[in-house]
Protein backbone atom coordinates (compact mmCIF):
# COMPACT_ATOMS: atom_id res chain seq x y z
CA UNK A 1 0.00 0.00 0.00
CA UNK A 2 1.16 3.53 -0.76
CA UNK A 3 2.32 5.82 2.04
CA UNK A 4 0.68 9.10 2.92
CA UNK A 5 2.09 12.08 1.02
CA UNK A 6 3.15 15.36 2.71
CA UNK A 7 -0.19 16.99 1.87
CA UNK A 8 -2.05 14.14 3.54
CA UNK A 9 0.13 14.43 6.64
CA UNK A 10 -0.48 18.19 6.88
CA UNK A 11 -4.23 17.58 6.61
CA UNK A 12 -3.97 14.88 9.26
CA UNK A 13 -2.00 17.13 11.64
CA UNK A 14 -4.50 19.99 11.36
CA UNK A 15 -7.38 17.53 11.76
CA UNK A 16 -5.96 16.03 14.95
CA UNK A 17 -5.19 19.47 16.40
CA UNK A 18 -8.76 20.62 15.77
CA UNK A 19 -10.15 17.42 17.33
CA UNK A 20 -8.04 17.78 20.47
CA UNK A 21 -8.07 21.60 20.84
CA UNK A 22 -11.45 22.09 22.58
CA UNK A 23 -10.74 19.35 25.12
CA UNK A 24 -7.19 20.56 25.70
CA UNK A 25 -8.25 24.19 26.14
CA UNK A 26 -10.78 23.21 28.82
CA UNK A 27 -8.13 21.27 30.75
CA UNK A 28 -5.58 24.09 30.40
CA UNK A 29 -7.92 26.90 31.46
CA UNK A 30 -8.84 24.82 34.51
CA UNK A 31 -5.29 25.34 35.81
CA UNK A 32 -5.29 29.12 35.44
CA UNK A 33 -4.13 31.10 38.49
CA UNK A 34 -6.21 34.11 37.38
CA UNK A 35 -9.72 34.96 38.50
CA UNK A 36 -11.04 35.01 34.93
CA UNK A 37 -10.97 32.78 31.85
CA UNK A 38 -7.41 32.67 30.55
CA UNK A 39 -4.73 30.24 29.53
CA UNK A 40 -2.27 29.59 32.38
CA UNK A 41 0.63 31.64 30.99
CA UNK A 42 1.98 32.58 34.45
CA UNK A 43 2.32 29.12 35.92
CA UNK A 44 -0.25 26.50 36.90
CA UNK A 45 -2.54 26.70 39.88
CA UNK A 46 -5.02 24.34 41.52
CA UNK A 47 -7.03 27.29 42.77
CA UNK A 48 -10.13 26.51 40.69
CA UNK A 49 -10.09 22.85 41.68
CA UNK A 50 -10.11 23.92 45.33
CA UNK A 51 -12.95 26.33 44.58
CA UNK A 52 -15.16 23.37 43.64
CA UNK A 53 -15.27 22.51 47.35
CA UNK A 54 -17.15 25.78 47.98
CA UNK A 55 -19.94 24.69 45.68
CA UNK A 56 -21.73 21.83 47.43
CA UNK A 57 -24.25 21.62 44.57
CA UNK A 58 -21.46 20.44 42.24
CA UNK A 59 -20.22 17.90 44.78
CA UNK A 60 -23.76 16.65 45.34
CA UNK A 61 -24.44 16.50 41.59
CA UNK A 62 -21.25 14.47 41.19
CA UNK A 63 -22.46 11.86 43.71
CA UNK A 64 -25.88 11.76 42.06
CA UNK A 65 -24.23 11.14 38.67
CA UNK A 66 -21.91 8.50 40.07
CA UNK A 67 -24.68 6.63 41.90
CA UNK A 68 -27.06 6.95 38.98
CA UNK A 69 -24.50 5.68 36.47
CA UNK A 70 -23.39 2.75 38.60
CA UNK A 71 -26.89 1.68 39.64
CA UNK A 72 -28.70 2.14 36.33
CA UNK A 73 -25.96 0.27 34.44
CA UNK A 74 -26.19 -2.58 36.97
CA UNK A 75 -29.99 -2.77 36.73
CA UNK A 76 -29.78 -2.62 32.92
CA UNK A 77 -27.45 -5.64 33.00
CA UNK A 78 -29.90 -7.59 35.18
CA UNK A 79 -32.39 -7.30 32.33
CA UNK A 80 -29.92 -7.34 29.44
CA UNK A 81 -27.87 -10.47 30.30
CA UNK A 82 -30.80 -12.95 30.12
CA UNK A 83 -32.13 -11.18 27.02
CA UNK A 84 -28.69 -11.32 25.38
CA UNK A 85 -28.38 -15.05 26.14
CA UNK A 86 -31.79 -15.71 24.62
CA UNK A 87 -31.04 -13.68 21.48
CA UNK A 88 -27.57 -15.21 21.07
CA UNK A 89 -28.63 -18.85 21.49
CA UNK A 90 -32.17 -19.34 20.29
CA UNK A 91 -33.88 -18.85 16.98
CA UNK A 92 -37.44 -17.97 17.84
CA UNK A 93 -40.32 -16.05 16.32
CA UNK A 94 -40.08 -12.35 17.03
CA UNK A 95 -36.35 -12.53 17.79
CA UNK A 96 -35.40 -9.80 15.30
CA UNK A 97 -38.29 -7.60 16.40
CA UNK A 98 -37.23 -7.97 20.04
CA UNK A 99 -33.62 -7.11 19.24
CA UNK A 100 -34.80 -4.05 17.31
CA UNK A 101 -36.99 -2.96 20.22
CA UNK A 102 -34.14 -3.38 22.72
CA UNK A 103 -31.78 -1.30 20.56
CA UNK A 104 -34.41 1.34 19.73
CA UNK A 105 -33.33 3.81 22.46
CA UNK A 106 -30.30 4.47 20.23
CA UNK A 107 -32.57 5.66 17.43
CA UNK A 108 -35.00 7.80 19.43
CA UNK A 109 -33.74 11.37 19.99
CA UNK A 110 -32.96 11.89 23.66
CA UNK A 111 -35.03 15.06 23.73
CA UNK A 112 -38.08 12.96 22.79
CA UNK A 113 -37.22 10.39 25.47
CA UNK A 114 -36.80 13.18 28.03
CA UNK A 115 -40.24 14.56 27.22
CA UNK A 116 -41.86 11.12 27.22
CA UNK A 117 -40.34 10.21 30.61
CA UNK A 118 -41.20 13.61 32.10
CA UNK A 119 -44.85 13.18 31.09
CA UNK A 120 -44.91 9.56 32.25
CA UNK A 121 -43.24 9.99 35.62
CA UNK A 122 -45.15 13.17 36.45
CA UNK A 123 -48.45 11.34 35.87
CA UNK A 124 -47.13 8.44 37.96
CA UNK A 125 -46.33 10.83 40.82
CA UNK A 126 -42.58 10.21 40.51
CA UNK A 127 -41.64 13.54 38.89
CA UNK A 128 -38.11 14.68 39.74
CA UNK A 129 -37.37 11.62 41.88
CA UNK A 130 -34.15 9.61 41.85
CA UNK A 131 -36.17 6.45 41.11
CA UNK A 132 -37.49 8.05 37.92
CA UNK A 133 -33.95 8.95 36.87
CA UNK A 134 -32.78 5.37 37.46
CA UNK A 135 -35.58 3.86 35.36
CA UNK A 136 -35.04 6.38 32.53
CA UNK A 137 -31.29 5.76 32.52
CA UNK A 138 -31.80 1.98 32.51
CA UNK A 139 -33.67 2.41 29.22
CA UNK A 140 -31.04 4.62 27.55
CA UNK A 141 -28.03 2.51 28.60
CA UNK A 142 -29.78 -0.82 27.88
CA UNK A 143 -28.65 -1.05 24.21
CA UNK A 144 -24.99 -0.69 25.22
CA UNK A 145 -25.28 -3.30 27.99
CA UNK A 146 -27.10 -5.65 25.62
CA UNK A 147 -24.79 -5.28 22.65
CA UNK A 148 -21.52 -5.90 24.48
CA UNK A 149 -22.96 -8.91 26.34
CA UNK A 150 -24.42 -10.19 23.07
CA UNK A 151 -21.05 -9.94 21.30
CA UNK A 152 -19.39 -12.16 23.93
CA UNK A 153 -22.32 -14.57 24.27
CA UNK A 154 -22.49 -15.11 20.50
CA UNK A 155 -18.85 -16.03 20.15
CA UNK A 156 -18.80 -18.23 23.25
CA UNK A 157 -17.57 -21.82 23.16
CA UNK A 158 -20.46 -23.89 24.47
CA UNK A 159 -18.61 -27.17 24.97
CA UNK A 160 -17.63 -26.10 28.50
CA UNK A 161 -21.30 -25.67 29.34
CA UNK A 162 -22.12 -29.06 27.87
CA UNK A 163 -19.37 -30.61 29.98
CA UNK A 164 -20.85 -28.97 33.08
CA UNK A 165 -24.32 -30.26 32.20
CA UNK A 166 -22.97 -33.78 31.68
CA UNK A 167 -21.47 -33.54 35.16
CA UNK A 168 -24.90 -32.73 36.57
CA UNK A 169 -24.84 -28.95 36.79
CA UNK A 170 -28.07 -27.22 35.87
CA UNK A 171 -30.05 -24.03 36.07
CA UNK A 172 -28.64 -21.45 38.43
CA UNK A 173 -25.40 -23.34 39.21
CA UNK A 174 -24.65 -23.67 35.50
CA UNK A 175 -25.20 -19.94 35.01
CA UNK A 176 -23.29 -18.78 38.09
CA UNK A 177 -20.32 -21.13 37.88
CA UNK A 178 -19.88 -21.59 34.11
CA UNK A 179 -21.80 -19.20 31.87
CA UNK A 180 -21.34 -15.99 33.82
CA UNK A 181 -17.55 -16.32 34.22
CA UNK A 182 -17.29 -16.96 30.48
CA UNK A 183 -19.30 -13.88 29.47
CA UNK A 184 -17.91 -11.70 32.27
CA UNK A 185 -15.55 -9.59 30.09
CA UNK A 186 -18.50 -8.56 27.94
CA UNK A 187 -20.67 -7.93 30.98
CA UNK A 188 -18.06 -5.73 32.69
CA UNK A 189 -17.37 -3.76 29.50
CA UNK A 190 -21.12 -3.43 28.94
CA UNK A 191 -21.36 -2.01 32.44
CA UNK A 192 -18.47 0.44 31.87
CA UNK A 193 -19.82 1.68 28.52
CA UNK A 194 -23.33 1.97 29.99
CA UNK A 195 -21.87 3.89 32.93
CA UNK A 196 -20.17 6.39 30.61
CA UNK A 197 -23.39 6.88 28.64
CA UNK A 198 -25.36 7.48 31.80
CA UNK A 199 -22.68 9.68 33.36
CA UNK A 200 -22.55 11.93 30.26
CA UNK A 201 -26.21 12.19 29.40
CA UNK A 202 -27.55 15.73 29.44
CA UNK A 203 -30.35 15.94 26.88
CA UNK A 204 -32.71 13.44 28.48
CA UNK A 205 -31.76 14.04 32.11
CA UNK A 206 -32.24 17.81 31.90
CA UNK A 207 -35.99 17.17 31.56
CA UNK A 208 -36.17 14.85 34.57
CA UNK A 209 -33.79 16.29 37.13
CA UNK A 210 -35.13 18.51 39.90
CA UNK A 211 -33.09 20.41 42.51
CA UNK A 212 -31.61 17.63 44.64
CA UNK A 213 -31.51 15.09 41.81
CA UNK A 214 -29.50 17.19 39.36
CA UNK A 215 -26.68 15.23 37.72
CA UNK A 216 -23.29 16.75 37.03
CA UNK A 217 -23.88 17.46 33.31
CA UNK A 218 -27.22 19.08 34.17
CA UNK A 219 -25.65 21.18 36.94
CA UNK A 220 -22.82 22.20 34.57
CA UNK A 221 -25.25 23.04 31.78
CA UNK A 222 -27.43 25.21 34.00
CA UNK A 223 -24.33 26.94 35.36
CA UNK A 224 -22.93 27.61 31.85
CA UNK A 225 -26.26 29.10 30.77
CA UNK A 226 -25.75 31.87 33.36
CA UNK A 227 -22.02 32.47 33.04
CA UNK A 228 -18.83 30.76 31.92
CA UNK A 229 -15.95 31.05 34.40
CA UNK A 230 -12.90 28.93 35.26
CA UNK A 231 -14.97 26.95 37.77
CA UNK A 232 -16.83 25.03 35.05
CA UNK A 233 -13.55 24.29 33.31
CA UNK A 234 -12.10 22.69 36.45
CA UNK A 235 -15.31 20.66 36.93
CA UNK A 236 -15.14 19.63 33.26
CA UNK A 237 -11.50 18.63 33.68
CA UNK A 238 -12.58 16.31 36.52
CA UNK A 239 -15.34 14.83 34.35
CA UNK A 240 -12.86 14.25 31.52
CA UNK A 241 -10.49 12.53 33.97
CA UNK A 242 -13.27 10.21 35.21
CA UNK A 243 -14.28 9.30 31.65
CA UNK A 244 -10.63 8.57 30.82
CA UNK A 245 -10.44 6.21 33.80
CA UNK A 246 -13.53 4.32 32.60
CA UNK A 247 -12.04 4.26 29.09
CA UNK A 248 -8.86 2.63 30.37
CA UNK A 249 -10.96 0.06 32.23
CA UNK A 250 -12.85 -0.65 29.02
CA UNK A 251 -9.67 -0.96 27.03
CA UNK A 252 -8.19 -3.46 29.50
CA UNK A 253 -11.21 -5.72 29.62
CA UNK A 254 -12.50 -5.51 26.11
CA UNK A 255 -10.43 -3.43 23.70
CA UNK A 256 -11.53 0.08 22.96
CA UNK A 257 -11.53 -0.41 19.20
CA UNK A 258 -14.22 -3.08 19.53
CA UNK A 259 -16.34 -0.89 21.81
CA UNK A 260 -16.13 2.07 19.47
CA UNK A 261 -16.66 0.00 16.36
CA UNK A 262 -19.94 -1.18 17.87
CA UNK A 263 -21.02 2.40 18.45
CA UNK A 264 -20.82 3.32 14.78
CA UNK A 265 -23.91 1.54 13.55
CA UNK A 266 -27.05 2.69 15.28
CA UNK A 267 -28.37 -0.77 15.89
CA UNK A 268 -29.29 -1.92 12.44
Amino acid at each position, binding site marked *: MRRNGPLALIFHTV*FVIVMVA*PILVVCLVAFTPEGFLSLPTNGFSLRWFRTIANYPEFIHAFWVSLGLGALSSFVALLFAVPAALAIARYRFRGRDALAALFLSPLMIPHVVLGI*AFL*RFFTSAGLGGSFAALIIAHVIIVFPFALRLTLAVATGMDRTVEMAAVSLGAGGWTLFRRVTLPLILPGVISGWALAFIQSFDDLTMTVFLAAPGTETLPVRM*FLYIQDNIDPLVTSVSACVIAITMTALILLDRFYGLDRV*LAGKGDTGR
Partner: protein
Amino acid sequence: MSAAAEEGSARTPWALTAPALMLFVGVLLIPLAMTVMLSFHDWGQYKGIEPVFILKNWREIATDPYYAEMFWRTFRIAILTTLLTALLGAPEAYILNRMSGRWKSFFLLVILGPLLISVVARTLGWALLFGGNNGLVNKLLMSLGVIRSPIPFMFTETGVVVALAHVMMPFMVLSVWAALQRLDPQIENAAMSLGAGPVTIIRRIIMPQIMPGVLSGAIIVFSLSASAFATPAIIGGRRLKVAATLAYDEFLNTLNWPLGAAVATLLLVALVLIVVGSNALIERRYAEVFR
Protein backbone atom coordinates in the same frame (compact mmCIF):
# COMPACT_ATOMS: atom_id res chain seq x y z
CA MET B 1 -39.85 -36.66 28.51
CA SER B 2 -38.41 -35.49 25.23
CA ALA B 3 -41.63 -33.65 24.38
CA ALA B 4 -41.45 -31.84 27.71
CA ALA B 5 -37.83 -30.85 27.06
CA GLU B 6 -38.74 -29.49 23.65
CA GLU B 7 -41.61 -27.52 25.06
CA GLY B 8 -39.31 -26.15 27.74
CA SER B 9 -36.73 -25.03 25.19
CA ALA B 10 -39.39 -23.28 23.11
CA ARG B 11 -40.44 -21.29 26.14
CA THR B 12 -36.91 -20.56 27.40
CA PRO B 13 -36.08 -17.60 25.11
CA TRP B 14 -39.37 -15.95 25.98
CA ALA B 15 -38.81 -16.50 29.69
CA LEU B 16 -35.34 -14.95 29.39
CA THR B 17 -36.51 -11.90 27.41
CA ALA B 18 -39.81 -11.38 29.24
CA PRO B 19 -38.43 -9.08 32.01
CA ALA B 20 -36.71 -6.80 29.48
CA LEU B 21 -39.77 -6.86 27.22
CA MET B 22 -42.08 -5.86 30.07
CA LEU B 23 -39.65 -3.09 31.04
CA PHE B 24 -39.61 -1.71 27.51
CA VAL B 25 -43.37 -1.87 27.04
CA GLY B 26 -44.02 -0.37 30.47
CA VAL B 27 -41.51 2.45 30.53
CA LEU B 28 -40.70 3.12 26.89
CA LEU B 29 -43.65 2.37 24.60
CA ILE B 30 -46.31 3.62 26.99
CA PRO B 31 -44.54 6.95 27.71
CA LEU B 32 -43.98 7.48 23.95
CA ALA B 33 -47.66 6.82 23.26
CA MET B 34 -48.59 9.22 26.07
CA THR B 35 -46.42 11.92 24.46
CA VAL B 36 -48.14 11.53 21.11
CA MET B 37 -51.50 11.77 22.91
CA LEU B 38 -50.32 14.81 24.85
CA SER B 39 -49.73 16.66 21.59
CA PHE B 40 -53.50 16.55 20.92
CA HIS B 41 -54.43 18.00 24.34
CA ASP B 42 -55.39 21.58 25.03
CA TRP B 43 -53.41 24.01 27.18
CA GLY B 44 -54.09 27.44 28.64
CA GLN B 45 -52.09 29.81 30.80
CA TYR B 46 -54.50 29.41 33.74
CA LYS B 47 -56.32 26.14 33.09
CA GLY B 48 -53.19 24.05 32.47
CA ILE B 49 -53.42 20.84 30.43
CA GLU B 50 -56.92 19.75 29.40
CA PRO B 51 -57.19 16.11 28.25
CA VAL B 52 -59.34 16.70 25.19
CA PHE B 53 -58.69 15.72 21.57
CA ILE B 54 -58.03 18.79 19.45
CA LEU B 55 -55.68 19.71 16.61
CA LYS B 56 -54.85 23.15 18.04
CA ASN B 57 -51.11 22.51 18.57
CA TRP B 58 -50.65 20.85 15.21
CA ARG B 59 -52.53 23.68 13.49
CA GLU B 60 -50.31 26.22 15.26
CA ILE B 61 -47.13 24.44 14.10
CA ALA B 62 -48.48 24.16 10.55
CA THR B 63 -49.61 27.78 10.23
CA ASP B 64 -47.24 29.86 12.37
CA PRO B 65 -44.15 30.64 10.20
CA TYR B 66 -42.05 30.71 13.39
CA TYR B 67 -42.11 26.89 13.54
CA ALA B 68 -41.41 26.45 9.83
CA GLU B 69 -38.39 28.73 10.23
CA MET B 70 -37.23 26.87 13.35
CA PHE B 71 -37.50 23.42 11.71
CA TRP B 72 -35.79 24.71 8.56
CA ARG B 73 -32.95 26.07 10.74
CA THR B 74 -32.69 22.73 12.57
CA PHE B 75 -32.39 20.76 9.36
CA ARG B 76 -30.10 23.34 7.74
CA ILE B 77 -27.68 23.06 10.66
CA ALA B 78 -27.90 19.25 10.49
CA ILE B 79 -27.25 19.18 6.73
CA LEU B 80 -24.27 21.54 6.92
CA THR B 81 -22.84 19.58 9.86
CA THR B 82 -23.23 16.34 7.90
CA LEU B 83 -21.49 17.82 4.82
CA LEU B 84 -18.64 19.17 6.93
CA THR B 85 -18.06 15.84 8.70
CA ALA B 86 -18.19 13.95 5.38
CA LEU B 87 -15.79 16.32 3.58
CA LEU B 88 -13.23 16.21 6.40
CA GLY B 89 -13.92 12.86 8.07
CA ALA B 90 -13.77 10.66 4.96
CA PRO B 91 -10.27 11.81 3.83
CA GLU B 92 -9.05 11.56 7.42
CA ALA B 93 -10.31 7.99 7.73
CA TYR B 94 -8.51 7.15 4.46
CA ILE B 95 -5.26 8.72 5.72
CA LEU B 96 -5.62 6.90 9.06
CA ASN B 97 -6.11 3.60 7.30
CA ARG B 98 -2.82 4.01 5.42
CA MET B 99 -0.78 4.62 8.56
CA SER B 100 1.38 1.93 10.06
CA GLY B 101 0.03 -0.18 12.93
CA ARG B 102 1.06 1.69 16.06
CA TRP B 103 0.33 5.20 14.74
CA LYS B 104 -2.95 4.02 13.33
CA SER B 105 -4.29 2.78 16.67
CA PHE B 106 -2.90 5.80 18.52
CA PHE B 107 -4.60 8.36 16.26
CA LEU B 108 -7.75 6.30 16.06
CA LEU B 109 -7.93 6.55 19.85
CA VAL B 110 -7.26 10.31 19.77
CA ILE B 111 -10.00 10.90 17.20
CA LEU B 112 -12.60 8.45 18.50
CA GLY B 113 -11.97 8.93 22.24
CA PRO B 114 -13.84 12.28 22.36
CA LEU B 115 -16.98 10.32 21.48
CA LEU B 116 -17.14 9.21 25.09
CA ILE B 117 -16.23 12.55 26.67
CA SER B 118 -19.08 14.71 27.97
CA VAL B 119 -20.73 16.80 25.24
CA VAL B 120 -21.02 19.66 27.74
CA ALA B 121 -17.24 19.66 28.27
CA ARG B 122 -16.52 19.50 24.53
CA THR B 123 -18.95 22.31 23.73
CA LEU B 124 -17.55 24.38 26.59
CA GLY B 125 -14.16 24.01 24.88
CA TRP B 126 -15.57 25.55 21.70
CA ALA B 127 -17.21 28.36 23.67
CA LEU B 128 -13.75 29.12 25.12
CA LEU B 129 -12.10 28.95 21.68
CA PHE B 130 -14.74 31.16 20.04
CA GLY B 131 -15.09 33.58 22.97
CA GLY B 132 -16.27 36.86 21.41
CA ASN B 133 -14.62 38.70 18.52
CA ASN B 134 -11.07 38.28 19.85
CA GLY B 135 -11.37 34.58 20.64
CA LEU B 136 -8.48 32.21 19.95
CA VAL B 137 -9.96 30.88 16.70
CA ASN B 138 -10.40 34.36 15.23
CA LYS B 139 -6.93 35.47 16.38
CA LEU B 140 -5.38 32.42 14.75
CA LEU B 141 -7.32 32.73 11.48
CA MET B 142 -6.48 36.45 11.25
CA SER B 143 -2.78 35.96 11.97
CA LEU B 144 -2.68 33.27 9.28
CA GLY B 145 -4.30 35.72 6.89
CA VAL B 146 -7.28 33.46 6.23
CA ILE B 147 -9.75 36.16 7.22
CA ARG B 148 -9.53 39.97 7.49
CA SER B 149 -12.13 40.70 10.16
CA PRO B 150 -13.27 38.38 12.95
CA ILE B 151 -16.12 35.98 12.17
CA PRO B 152 -18.83 35.97 14.82
CA PHE B 153 -19.00 32.36 16.08
CA MET B 154 -20.87 32.63 19.37
CA PHE B 155 -24.66 32.75 19.02
CA THR B 156 -24.49 32.12 15.26
CA GLU B 157 -25.28 29.13 13.05
CA THR B 158 -21.65 29.09 11.88
CA GLY B 159 -20.48 28.46 15.43
CA VAL B 160 -23.12 25.81 16.08
CA VAL B 161 -22.20 23.96 12.86
CA VAL B 162 -18.45 24.02 13.66
CA ALA B 163 -18.90 22.79 17.24
CA LEU B 164 -21.51 20.22 16.23
CA ALA B 165 -19.26 18.92 13.43
CA HIS B 166 -16.55 18.39 16.04
CA VAL B 167 -18.95 16.53 18.32
CA MET B 168 -20.19 14.30 15.45
CA MET B 169 -16.88 13.79 13.62
CA PRO B 170 -15.98 10.49 15.35
CA PHE B 171 -19.17 8.85 14.03
CA MET B 172 -18.23 9.74 10.45
CA VAL B 173 -14.58 8.67 10.77
CA LEU B 174 -15.71 5.41 12.36
CA SER B 175 -18.25 4.67 9.65
CA VAL B 176 -15.85 5.36 6.76
CA TRP B 177 -13.09 3.48 8.56
CA ALA B 178 -15.34 0.42 8.82
CA ALA B 179 -15.97 0.62 5.06
CA LEU B 180 -12.24 0.89 4.40
CA GLN B 181 -11.62 -2.33 6.34
CA ARG B 182 -13.66 -4.23 3.75
CA LEU B 183 -11.60 -2.78 0.91
CA ASP B 184 -8.97 -4.95 -0.74
CA PRO B 185 -5.66 -3.01 -0.93
CA GLN B 186 -4.66 -5.13 -3.94
CA ILE B 187 -7.25 -3.37 -6.09
CA GLU B 188 -5.44 -0.09 -5.49
CA ASN B 189 -2.13 -1.70 -6.47
CA ALA B 190 -3.71 -3.24 -9.55
CA ALA B 191 -5.01 0.17 -10.64
CA MET B 192 -1.58 1.68 -10.07
CA SER B 193 0.16 -1.03 -12.09
CA LEU B 194 -2.26 -0.32 -14.93
CA GLY B 195 -1.09 3.29 -14.92
CA ALA B 196 -3.77 5.08 -12.90
CA GLY B 197 -2.63 8.25 -11.09
CA PRO B 198 -3.47 9.01 -7.46
CA VAL B 199 -6.43 11.24 -8.37
CA THR B 200 -7.92 8.60 -10.64
CA ILE B 201 -7.43 5.92 -7.99
CA ILE B 202 -9.25 7.96 -5.36
CA ARG B 203 -12.04 9.00 -7.72
CA ARG B 204 -12.58 5.70 -9.54
CA ILE B 205 -11.46 3.04 -7.05
CA ILE B 206 -11.66 4.34 -3.46
CA MET B 207 -14.64 6.71 -3.58
CA PRO B 208 -17.20 4.28 -5.02
CA GLN B 209 -16.21 1.64 -2.47
CA ILE B 210 -16.32 3.82 0.64
CA MET B 211 -19.49 5.67 -0.43
CA PRO B 212 -21.80 3.33 1.54
CA GLY B 213 -19.70 4.07 4.64
CA VAL B 214 -19.90 7.81 4.03
CA LEU B 215 -23.66 7.61 3.51
CA SER B 216 -24.40 5.51 6.58
CA GLY B 217 -22.15 7.83 8.60
CA ALA B 218 -24.09 10.75 7.15
CA ILE B 219 -27.40 9.26 8.32
CA ILE B 220 -26.08 8.88 11.88
CA VAL B 221 -24.58 12.38 11.94
CA PHE B 222 -27.68 13.94 10.42
CA SER B 223 -30.15 12.37 12.82
CA LEU B 224 -28.00 13.12 15.88
CA SER B 225 -27.39 16.73 14.73
CA ALA B 226 -31.06 17.40 14.01
CA SER B 227 -31.95 16.38 17.56
CA ALA B 228 -28.86 17.82 19.28
CA PHE B 229 -29.49 19.84 22.41
CA ALA B 230 -26.35 20.77 24.38
CA THR B 231 -24.34 22.32 21.53
CA PRO B 232 -27.11 24.52 20.04
CA ALA B 233 -28.14 25.54 23.56
CA ILE B 234 -24.63 26.60 24.67
CA ILE B 235 -23.19 27.97 21.39
CA GLY B 236 -26.48 29.13 19.86
CA GLY B 237 -27.79 30.74 23.02
CA ARG B 238 -31.41 31.54 23.77
CA ARG B 239 -32.26 33.24 20.49
CA LEU B 240 -31.04 30.66 17.96
CA LYS B 241 -33.70 28.02 18.60
CA VAL B 242 -33.64 24.53 17.14
CA ALA B 243 -36.24 21.79 17.62
CA ALA B 244 -34.67 20.31 20.76
CA THR B 245 -34.08 23.63 22.52
CA LEU B 246 -37.56 24.86 21.59
CA ALA B 247 -39.16 21.72 23.04
CA TYR B 248 -37.06 22.24 26.18
CA ASP B 249 -38.34 25.82 26.49
CA GLU B 250 -41.97 24.80 26.03
CA PHE B 251 -41.63 22.13 28.69
CA LEU B 252 -39.58 23.86 31.36
CA ASN B 253 -40.14 27.61 30.84
CA THR B 254 -43.44 28.27 29.09
CA LEU B 255 -44.92 25.05 30.52
CA ASN B 256 -47.00 24.54 27.38
CA TRP B 257 -46.46 20.78 27.40
CA PRO B 258 -48.90 19.86 24.61
CA LEU B 259 -47.17 22.23 22.17
CA GLY B 260 -43.74 20.94 23.22
CA ALA B 261 -44.99 17.36 22.78
CA ALA B 262 -46.20 18.23 19.26
CA VAL B 263 -42.77 19.66 18.35
CA ALA B 264 -41.05 16.55 19.73
CA THR B 265 -43.45 14.17 17.96
CA LEU B 266 -42.92 15.98 14.67
CA LEU B 267 -39.13 15.80 15.13
CA LEU B 268 -39.32 12.07 15.89
CA VAL B 269 -41.58 11.29 12.93
CA ALA B 270 -39.51 13.42 10.52
CA LEU B 271 -36.28 11.75 11.63
CA VAL B 272 -37.68 8.22 11.48
CA LEU B 273 -38.99 8.87 7.95
CA ILE B 274 -35.69 10.41 6.79
CA VAL B 275 -33.54 7.66 8.36
CA VAL B 276 -35.68 4.74 7.19
CA GLY B 277 -36.11 6.29 3.73
CA SER B 278 -32.45 6.97 3.14
CA ASN B 279 -31.44 3.58 4.56
CA ALA B 280 -33.73 1.91 2.02
CA LEU B 281 -32.33 4.06 -0.79
CA ILE B 282 -28.74 3.29 0.14
CA GLU B 283 -29.40 -0.40 0.48
CA ARG B 284 -31.06 -0.53 -2.93
CA ARG B 285 -28.31 1.55 -4.56
CA TYR B 286 -25.46 -0.37 -2.95
CA ALA B 287 -27.11 -3.76 -2.58
CA GLU B 288 -24.05 -5.56 -3.96
CA VAL B 289 -21.70 -3.91 -1.43
CA PHE B 290 -23.76 -5.00 1.56
CA ARG B 291 -24.05 -8.56 0.35
